[in-house]
């Protein structure tokens, strides 16, 4: 019976992957999948062998146990989403900070000053913009800020004659590169691997020193090198297009340009809270840029508006983020069945996992089974159940396809979808540039992961 349920779960898994590839709503998808997997897992206990039930305490509920069926349901539909409250709050403040950087003109000034250093040489401008974009997105989060920076960066790149597909590719790839050092994303993906309250030593600072700096640097370099290669074989283009001119804005004061880095630096150096860092840097930005130049009431209204706009930026993601934990939670009930089928064939050594994930990186696209913001949450559940790896290793193994694959290469990512529409680039033209980068960058990152994370001590296992 457990084998049959396992096969049904796998079939539904591929069905869900197809659903994601088709671009249907993820919130509804995860809610449906959570319910389907819960029903299958619970029904499976009726016919599974006693030995199987005994070997998996998570499936023991009802009469004679401490766990009732209602408790199982509550765990999935109540505790799961509630547990993600902390992650959501980080997102909201991250989006607010992104709004502050846009509204004060700090983000735009950084971009413009950077471009002025590059002159009319496209590759130098690309290098500078990739580095600066990556740095900006270590603290900015969400589709709104990416679009706001994109409407500055993309016209500049295209005006230099860089083909629109390459312009979009290099911008999106550098957003992805910066995301490796973004504390909000770290908190989000960490919560997939382990409960936020567990393993307190696995901090953002530790992660950054051990892996994050190197991962960001690798992806920035790979993005630049790939852009240079693509530019060599590309045809220069000149477009007549009309768009609003963000360049018309005046520059923010020079000393405020360091503020985007403040939350990240505070968090890494002093383990200062992410939200505290956002608030401190955001309020300083507003003060130094003269945005608090009205009365108390108006200033508060203005702060309120920024929070409102930031919340709107994250709103479509909130629905997805509150249903995803239901799926994550139910994965622990489903994973014994997965183990029954896949256990014998899933690699259990870190080296083989790195090799397997490298080969299968394509499945991080289209919300596939390797990305945590797709159906990778189930894969993670399976992997956690069939073998034992350290928490940081698991984090990195899934962060690579999620960030470089989903955030930085996939056309289903919200800001990439916007970029395709904005630049009028065909999806296949973008993928033609992003997929090789995904494999080259991903391979290097899995090598890094194996070197730095595969031999951690028992303290890093939970």
């Amino acid at each position: 019976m457990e084998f049959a349920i396992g096969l049904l779960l796998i079939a539904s898994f591929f069905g869900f992957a197809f659903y994601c590839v088709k671009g249907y709503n993820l919130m509804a998808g995860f809610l449906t999948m959570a319910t389907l997997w819960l029903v299958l897992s619970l029904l499976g206990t009726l016919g599974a062998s006693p030995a199987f039930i005994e070997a998996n305490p998570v499936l023991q509920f009802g009469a004679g146990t401490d766990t009732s069926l209602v408790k199982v349901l509550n765990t999935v539909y109540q505790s799961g989403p509630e547990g993600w409250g902390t992650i959501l709050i980080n997102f909201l403040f991250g989006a607010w900070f992104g709004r502050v950087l846009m509204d004060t003109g700090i983000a735009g000034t950084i971009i413009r000053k950077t471009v002025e250093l590059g002159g009319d040489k496209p590759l130098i401008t690309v290098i500078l913009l990739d580095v600066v974009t990556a740095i900006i997105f270590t603290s900015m989060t969400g589709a709104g800020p990416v679009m706001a920076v994109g409407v500055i960066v993309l016209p500049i790149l295209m005006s230099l004659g860089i083909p629109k597909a390459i312009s979009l590719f290099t911008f999106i790839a550098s957003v992805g590169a910066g995301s490796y050092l973004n504390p909000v994303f770290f908190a989000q993906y960490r919560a997939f691997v382990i409960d936020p309250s567990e393993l307190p030593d696995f901090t953002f600072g530790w992660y950054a020193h051990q892996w994050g700096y190197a991962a960001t640097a690798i992806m920035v370099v790979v993005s630049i090198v790939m852009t240079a290669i693509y530019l060599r074989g590309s045809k220069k283009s000149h477009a007549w297009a009309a768009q609003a001119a963000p360049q018309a804005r005046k520059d923010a004061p020079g000393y405020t340009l360091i503020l985007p880095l403040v939350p990240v630096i505070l968090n890494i150096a002093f383990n200062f809270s992410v939200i505290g860092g956002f608030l401190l840097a955001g309020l300083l930005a507003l003060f130094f840029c003269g945005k608090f130049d009205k009365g108390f009431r108006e200033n508060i209204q203005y702060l309120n508006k920024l929070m409102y706009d930031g919340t709107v930026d994250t709103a479509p993601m909130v629905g997805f983020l509150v249903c995803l934990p239901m799926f994550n939670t139910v994965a622990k009930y489903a994973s014994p069945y997965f183990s029954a089928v896949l256990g014998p064939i899933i690699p259990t050594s870190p080296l083989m996992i790195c090799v397997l994930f490298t080969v299968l990186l394509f499945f991080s696209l289209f919300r596939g089974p390797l990305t945590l913001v797709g159906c990778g949450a189930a894969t993670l559940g399976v992997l956690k159940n069939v073998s034992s790896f350290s928490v940081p290793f698991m984090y990195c193994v899934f962060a690579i396809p999620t960030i470089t694959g989903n955030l930085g290469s996939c056309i289903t990512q919200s800001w990439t979808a916007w970029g395709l529409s904005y630049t009028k680039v065909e999806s296949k033209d973008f993928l033609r540039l992003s997929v090789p980068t995904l494999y080259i960058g991903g391979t290097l990152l899995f090598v890094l992961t194996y070197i730095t994370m595969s031999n951690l001590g028992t303290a890093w296992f939970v």
Partner: protein
Amino acid sequence: MEGPRKRWTDAIIRPVKKTLFGEEDYSGASPIPADLDVAPIEDVARDVCALGWDDWRDYAFAREPLNGRLDDVQRKELMEAAYGCGTSWARRIAGELGSSDPLDVARGLGASVAFEERPHGQDRVLFAEFVEPDQIFVYGDALDKAQGLLDKPEVRELVGSRLRPQPLLVAHEAYHLVELSHADEVWSQTHRVDVGFGPFHNRSRLVILSELCAMAFAQELTGLPYSPYVLDVLLTYSYSAMAGTSLYREVMGYQPKDMEGELATQWQPAND
């Protein structure tokens, strides 16, 4: 006469002060205008068609990545020079090819002209494109929208009979082919501006000069009595009256609209 102290102040103190502390009248980014009323198309068409060549200076240079390294005197000189370059090349090429019809000129220069349908959003309206070495793409979606607007009698009366978007777009893109084939002698390709910092010199080409010369080239070939830049406003207006009004306000010297915020809220992502 300028004393050494003033020269020293201009060369060192002011740039450092501006870099560190921003501009003296800086008071944060432009606020979102409280008045978001859409301007009537009649007002828009009448006002933009009445603008002279130099009136488009701020609008054009706002789209130059190195604009921050230029001052108003330089911008004014460059506007004049670009007009001279574009019109003189238009006369020369028309004379050499024996035709001033933009399509004939483009084909005479060896370009293939393709008309493609391409959907547009409201945030960036793509009219036409030149892809090196010799391909010109004119996007039919923009042309259809433009025709719909120009077919309105009240608009046609204001813009006059000379405004025909298709030849104008082709003529503009044909100039980029002229630049490519005469790279050593076309001013927009050879002119360099020093955009270095302090003792570091960096003589750089300005991409906006190509676009300005292409506008003047197209204006001369088509005999348009005003700048082809009017298409930016009119075509964008035909896609979105709000976005068109935003450009119109920018061109006419109103506070630029906060399009970054506008764009971010216009488009709603489907997922994360």
